[in-house]
């Protein structure tokens, strides 16, 4: 089974600054999807960004971008111009392209944004 590792249980960033959340994964597959989800205290899981492994170009959504390094099996999330509303748990997730539909989640990184 694929494993997803988020090595930073907690991170802190000042408002308007940039922060990078790390994620590595283990797989023998060549095609797959990677996701970052945000979970604020409301419990809602919010899709932040999605990356297909066959695409070399890094996905970007407004202030959120990823650094996808397929050979290194690394998928970090960069949040630019951090806002107070970005404070949440961030989960990295892997999904196989061919075998099954489960999202394999990392343990999450708690992001604190300070004024």
């Amino acid at each position, binding site marked *: 089974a694929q494993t997803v590792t988020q090595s930073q249980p907690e991170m802190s960033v000042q408002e308007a600054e940039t922060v990078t959340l790390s994620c590595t994964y283990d797989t023998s597959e060549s095609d797959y999807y990677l996701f970052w989800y945000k979970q604020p205290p409301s419990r809602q*899981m919010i899709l932040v960004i999605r990356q297909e492994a066959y695409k070399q170009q890094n996905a970007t959504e407004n202030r959120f971008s990823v650094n996808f390094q397929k050979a290194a099996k690394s998928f970090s999330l960069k949040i630019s111009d951090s806002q107070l509303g970005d404070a949440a748990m961030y*989960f990295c997730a892997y999904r196989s392209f061919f075998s099954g*539909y489960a999202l394999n*989640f990392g343990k999450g990184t708690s992001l604190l944004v300070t004024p």
Partner: protein
Amino acid sequence: SAVISQKPSRDICQRGTSLTIQCQVDSQVTMMFWYRQQPGQSLTLIATANQGSEATYESGFVIDKFPISRPNLTFSTLTVSNMSPEDSSIYLCSVETQAEKLFFGSGTQLSVL
């Protein structure tokens, strides 16, 4: 995107009872999923709810404990049966859109006394 309505948002239940959680989507979707998030933990897939057939359960989850219904392409229910305190978790419904994006409901916070 997809708008997902999940009910109830939270409940406190007695040991040995059952709770049914509903998930309603604003559009037809092929794939619906149920996840569990134990306190302070990440999410774990319970099962895939298939329309017109039995749900597909992940290892460690069984139909007798977590029966699932999927009567149409916009609705599913998950029942947590014969509850014990270990079932206290957040239960989340998820759907996959045609754009292959996965969206989640707001979750059901279940506490079992």
